[in-house]
C-alpha cells in the first residue's frame, strides 16, 4: 500500500510549490546592483552641456535616478505621474536621458514639462550599461551614502509610488 501512495505524495509536494509559485511574479528580477554603490559618472547635463553632473552632487540626500528617453513610448505614459510626484517635493528626481538625441530630449522636456533637478545626458548608453539598464524607463532609489536601494523596471505608476517608493524613501530619510 505504502509504495502506491508515493505518486500521490510527490504530487502533493508539487502542488504546494505551484501554490506558492502562483503568488510570485517570475518577471520581477532583483538587480545585482541593489546594495551596491551607485556607479559614478561625470557627463554633460542635457539642457546645459557646459555643466558636468555626477552622482556625487546628490551626496547626503535620498534621490531617484529615472532613466528615460524621448523615443520611449512608456516614458510618455510615465511622465505625468513623475510630474505630479516632483511637485510633491518628496524626493529629488534626477533624469538619465538614455541613448537620445540632445535636441529631441530638450524638446521633450519643454513640451511635456521637466520633473528633474537635472538630466544627465547619456548619448551612447555607457552609463546605462554601468547601471544594468535593459529597458527604458527604469528607476533607481539611491540613499544618502550613494547606495542603490531599489530598482523599478517599467513605468512608475501612482501605486508604485504609494506602495514602494514613499515607504522606502521615508525609511531612508530617517536613517
Amino acid at each position: 500500500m505504502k509504495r502506491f501512495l508515493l505518486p500521490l505524495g510527490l504530487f502533493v509536494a508539487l502542488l504546494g510549490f505551484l501554490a506558492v509559485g502562483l503568488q510570485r511574479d517570475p518577471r520581477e528580477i532583483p538587480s545585482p546592483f541593489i546594495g551596491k554603490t551607485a556607479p559614478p559618472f561625470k557627463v554633460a547635463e542635457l539642457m546645459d552641456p557646459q555643466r558636468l553632473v555626477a552622482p556625487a552632487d546628490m551626496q547626503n540626500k535620498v534621490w531617484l535616478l529615472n532613466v528615460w528617453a524621448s523615443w520611449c513610448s512608456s516614458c510618455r505614459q510615465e511622465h505625468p505621474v513623475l510630474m505630479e510626484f516632483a511637485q510633491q517635493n518628496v524626493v529629488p528626481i534626477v533624469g538619465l536621458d538614455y541613448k537620445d538625441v540632445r535636441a529631441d530630449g530638450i524638446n521633450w522636456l519643454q513640451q511635456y514639462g521637466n520633473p528633474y533637478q537635472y538630466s544627465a545626458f547619456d548619448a551612447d548608453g555607457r552609463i546605462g550599461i554601468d547601471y544594468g539598464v535593459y529597458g527604458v524607463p527604469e528607476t533607481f532609489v539611491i540613499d544618502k551614502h550613494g547606495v542603490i536601494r531599489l530598482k523599478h523596471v517599467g513605468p512608475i505608476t501612482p501605486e508604485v509610488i504609494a506602495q514602494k517608493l514613499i515607504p522606502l524613501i521615508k525609511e531612508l530619510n530617517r536613517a
Partner: protein
Amino acid sequence: MIAELAHYCLILALCLALIQGTLPLLGAARLQARWMALARPLACGQFLFVSLAFAGLIVCLVNNDFSLLYVASNSNSRLPVYYRIAASWGGHEGSLLLWTEMLGLWSCAVALLSWQLPERTVARVLGVMGLISVGFLCFMLFTSNPFERLLSPPLDGRDLNPLLQDIGMIIHPPLLYMGYVGFSVAFAFAIAALIGGQLDAAWARWSRPWTLVAWLFLTLGILVGSFWAYYELGWGGWWFWDAVENASFMPWLVGTALLHSLAVTEKRGSFKNWTVLLAIICFSLSLLGTFLVRSGVLTSVHAFATDPRRGLYILLFLAVVVGGSLTLYAWRAPSVGLGGRFALWSRETTLLLNNVLLLSAAATVLLGTLYPLFLDALNLGKISVGPPYFEAVFVPLMLPVLWLMGAGPYVRWKSAELAPLLRRLRWVALLCVALLVGIACYAATPMVMLGLGSAGWVLASTASHLRERLGHGTADSGWLRRLRKQPRSYWGMLLAHAGIGVFVIGVTMVKGYEHSEDRAMQVGESATVAGYTFRFTALRDIQGPNYTAAQGTFEVSDGTRVLTLLRPEKRLYTVQNMPMTEAAIDRGALRDLYVSLGELTEQGVWVVRFQHKPMVSWIWAGCLLMAAGGALAATDRRYRLKRSRLASA
C-alpha cells in the same frame, strides 16, 4: 445576440456535462442500465452545444463584433478573415473553448466508436470525461468567459498577436490540443478500470488505439509548433526548451512510454499498475501544461494571457483531478496483481527499461522547467534554467533509449537468449562500426559520431528486422505476399522507429554543423557564407493588410549559377506597433539556407543574419514518419475487425 446564444449554449453544455459526470457513474456502480445508457447521448449532446458556442465565437470574430471583449482584444477589422477565424483560439478564453471543444470531440468519438465495449465501461469512461468537461466549462464560465460584452465597445480591435498571424499558428493549437486532450481518453479508461477493478488485456486493447491517435496528434502538434518557431521567430532555432514547449514535450515522453507499456499489458498481461499510473501521469502532465501556460507562474515566450486568479482555479482543478486519481490509484492498485512473469532477458525487460528511461527523461524536463519556481518558492533566489541543462541531462538518457530501440524488436517475449540475439544483430553492428569509422575520417566531433552512430544503429536494425521477417517463411509464399501480410501495427512500429532515426540524424547534423553569420550590408553588397554567395540586390517597402514591411531581395548563388531569390522581411504590425522578423528560407533535403533581416543601423545599412542549416528538414521528416507510424498502428486490423464484425452482427 449570437454571443448571448453561444453563452447560453455553453451553460447548457455544462448542465449536460454535470449529468454526464454523475448519472452514468452512479449507474455503473448500481447496475442501473438506464442511467448508464445516458452516457452516449449526453456526450454527443454536450459536444453539439460546445460546438455551437465555438461556432458562435467564430461568427462574432468574422463579423468584427468589437462589443465582445474577446474580439476587441484579439482581432482587428484589417485582419484577414482566416486569421480572424484562427483568433478564436489565439487568446486565453478562446483557447479554453478549443480545449473543451476537443474534449467534446473525443467524448463523442468514444461514444460512437465503442460498440464493442461493455456498457459499464462506456458509462464509466464517458462519466470521467464528463467530469473533466465540467471542470473546464466551469473554468470558462466563471473566470474566463469568451462571450463577455464591453459596455462601450471600441471602434476597432487590438489585433491578434502578430506572432500568431501565421499558417503554422492556425493549425498548431488544434493539433496540440487534440493530442493533449486525447490523453484524457486513456486517462478515463484507466480510471474506469481502477473503479471497476478490471485491469486486463482487454482494457489495454481498448485504450491502445485511442492513446496512439492522441500521441500522433501530439507529435504533429509539437512538430508544427517547432516548425513555426523555426521560421517565424526569425532566428532559426527550432527548439528552445522553453517552459511551454516542455509542457507539451513531457506528455509526449510519458505518452510514448504509455504506448509501449500498453503493448506489454495487452500481449502479456504484465505491467498493469505501471500502465495505469502512466496513463494518469500522462494526462496530469497535459493538465499541468495547461496550468503552466495559463497561470503565468513561469516566464515564457508563450505567456500570452495570464492571471493569477485563473491560475488558482486550474491549480484547484489539478488538485482535484490528479490528487483524486492518484488517491484512487493508491487505494485500488495494490489489489491488481502482477500478471505474466518474465525472465531478465526478455522483451518485457527492454520495454521496462524504455519506460524507466522515458519517464526519467520526462522527470528531468519537469525538474528543469519547475526548478526556477522551486527556488523562488523557497526564497533561494531567481534563476532560469536553459538549454545547457536540458541538453546535458536529456541526451545521456535518450542515447540508451536509441540503442534499446534497435535491439528491442529482436528480443522475444517472456524469455530470450543472448547468443541468437547477438548473432542476428551482428551485421547491423558491423555496419554501424563501419559507418563510425567512415564518419571519423571526416574529423567529426564525438557528439556527431555518437548521434549519427546511434541513428544508424536504429535505422539499420529496423531495416534488418523487416528483411528478416520477409525472409522467413515457406517457399510457396513469395516475399511480396509476406510483405502484404504484415499487420499494420508492425509497419507502424517500423515507421515510427525509423522516424526517430531520421530525426536524430537531423538533430545531430544541425547541432554539429550549423553555421550562422551576422553581416552589416547595404543594397548591392555581397556576402559569402558556407560556400554560398548572397547578393543584396534590392530593398523595397511593401504594404500588408495590417502591417508595413521592408523587404530585402537576396540572390543566392553557389559560385557557378544563381540558385534562388530569397526575400526576408522586417514587418511592423501597425495596430500593436510590434516589429516582426519574417525570415526567408530556401529549403532542401540536405540543407536550409536561412536569411533574416535584423536591425537597420544607419541609413541603408542592415544587419543581416545568414544561416546554413544542414539537414534540418530531416527533423520534420522524422516527426512526420513517427506520426505516420502512429496512424498505421492505430488502424491495425485487430482494432477494426471487432468494429465491423459487431456492426454487421
